[in-house]
C-alpha cells in the first residue's frame, strides 16, 4: 500500500474507521488488527470502486464488512470472545488498555458494544451525522427502517448509561 494512497484516500476517513473498529473490539491488540485489516482491504478493493457511490460510503461499507467478518471469525475461533450477550464484567476485564481518557465516552462505548452487530453500525454512523439515507445505503436497507432503529437504539443506550 503506497503512503500516498493511505494519506489521501484512507487517512481522511481514519476517524470513522477507528471509531467503528473500537466498537467491535475489546482490546488494543484486536483494535489494531481490525484497523490494519480494514486499511488493507480498502487498498485491495480500490480497483472495484466504480464511483456509483461516494468514496466515503465505499470506505464505511468496507470497514463495516471487515469488522463484521473479523468478529464472526473470532467468534468461531473462540467461543468466549465478546458477543452481543457477553456479560458486562467480562468486557471490563479486557478493556484496560483499550479505554479513552474521556470517561463518559468509555461508558458510551461499553453500552454500544452490548448492542447487536448491526445496531452498533447504525448508531456509529448516526453519531457521525450521516443521513438516514446514507446509513441505509451503507447497511443495505431503507431510510425509514433506519429512523425507527436509531430511535430504539438511542433509548437502549440512554437506559444503559442511566442505569
Amino acid at each position, binding site marked *: *500500500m503506497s503512503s500516498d494512497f493511505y494519506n489521501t484516500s484512507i487517512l481522511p476517513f481514519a476517524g470513522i474507521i477507528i471509531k467503528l473498529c473500537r466498537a467491535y473490539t475489546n482490546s488494543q491488540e484486536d*483494535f*489494531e488488527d481490525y484497523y490494519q485489516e480494514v486499511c*488493507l482491504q480498502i487498498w485491495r478493493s480500490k480497483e472495484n470502486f466504480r464511483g456509483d457511490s461516494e468514496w466515503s460510503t465505499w470506505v464505511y461499507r468496507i470497514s463495516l464488512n471487515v469488522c463484521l467478518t473479523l468478529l464472526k471469525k473470532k467468534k468461531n475461533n473462540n467461543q468466549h470472545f465478546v458477543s452481543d450477550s457477553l456479560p458486562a464484567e467480562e468486557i471490563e476485564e479486557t478493556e484496560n488498555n483499550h479505554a479513552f*481518557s474521556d470517561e*463518559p*465516552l468509555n*461508558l458510551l462505548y461499553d453500552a454500544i458494544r452490548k448492542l447487536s452487530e448491526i445496531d452498533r453500525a447504525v448508531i456509529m454512523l448516526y*453519531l457521525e451525522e450521516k443521513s438516514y439515507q446514507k446509513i441505509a445505503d451503507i447497511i443495505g436497507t431503507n431510510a425509514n427502517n433506519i429512523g425507527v432503529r436509531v430511535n430504539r437504539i438511542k433509548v437502549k443506550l440512554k437506559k444503559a448509561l442511566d442505569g
Partner: protein
Amino acid sequence: MDKSIENIWKEGFLKSDALIAPKLNNLYTRKSIHIIDKFKRMFKINLIAIVAFSFIFLIVSFLVGIPIMGIIFFVTLTVLVIINKRLLNGLERLDKGVNCYEYLKAFNQWIKMQVSVNRRMSTFLYPIIFVSMILGFWFKDAKGLPLGERLVHKILLSFPDIYLIFGIPLIGFVIVVFILVLLAFFGGRIYQWDLNLIYGRVFKKLEELMADIESLNN
C-alpha cells in the same frame, strides 16, 4: 447521565488521544507468521497421514494377499516421509529474527527447494508405486499359482504363438514400460497438481502478502 449521547460522542472525540491510528506494518508480520504456521501445520498433518496410510496399507496388503505391493509402498512412502521430515527441520531453522519480508522470502526459497526435491522424487515415486501394484497382483496367490503366471497361461491358451520375454507376453511388457515412462515423465506434474490441490490457497496468500509488502516498500 445529563448529556445526550450525541454530545458525549462529540466531546469525547475532541480529546487528542481518541483518534490515534495504529501503525500499519505490524499486520504483515502477524500475517506472515500465520501463513507459515498454517503451512507447517498442514505439512506435518500431511506427513502423519502418509505414515498412517502406509502402515494401514501394509497390514491390509498382507490380509488380502498382496504383501509385495504393501512392502514396496511402505518402504517408498517411508523414504518420502523421512526426506520431507528433514526438509521440514530446515524450515524450523529459518531465522525468525529478520523482518517479515525477509522471513517470507526465506520461506519462499525453502518452498522452492522443497518442491524441486519432491518433483525429482516424483519421477521415481509414481513409477515405483505402479511397479509395486503390478508385482503385488502378479505374485498374488491364485489357487496355488501366482496370479500373473495363471494369467500368462490363459493368454497362451488363446494365443499360443505370442512372443514372451522373461515369461511375460511382449505386448504386456511394452504396455507396462510405456506406462512407466509416462509416469516418470509426468511424475513432476502430477506432484505439482497434487501440491496445488492441498497447499494452493496457502501459496496464493503467500504470493499476495509478498506482493503487498513489495508494493508497500515501493
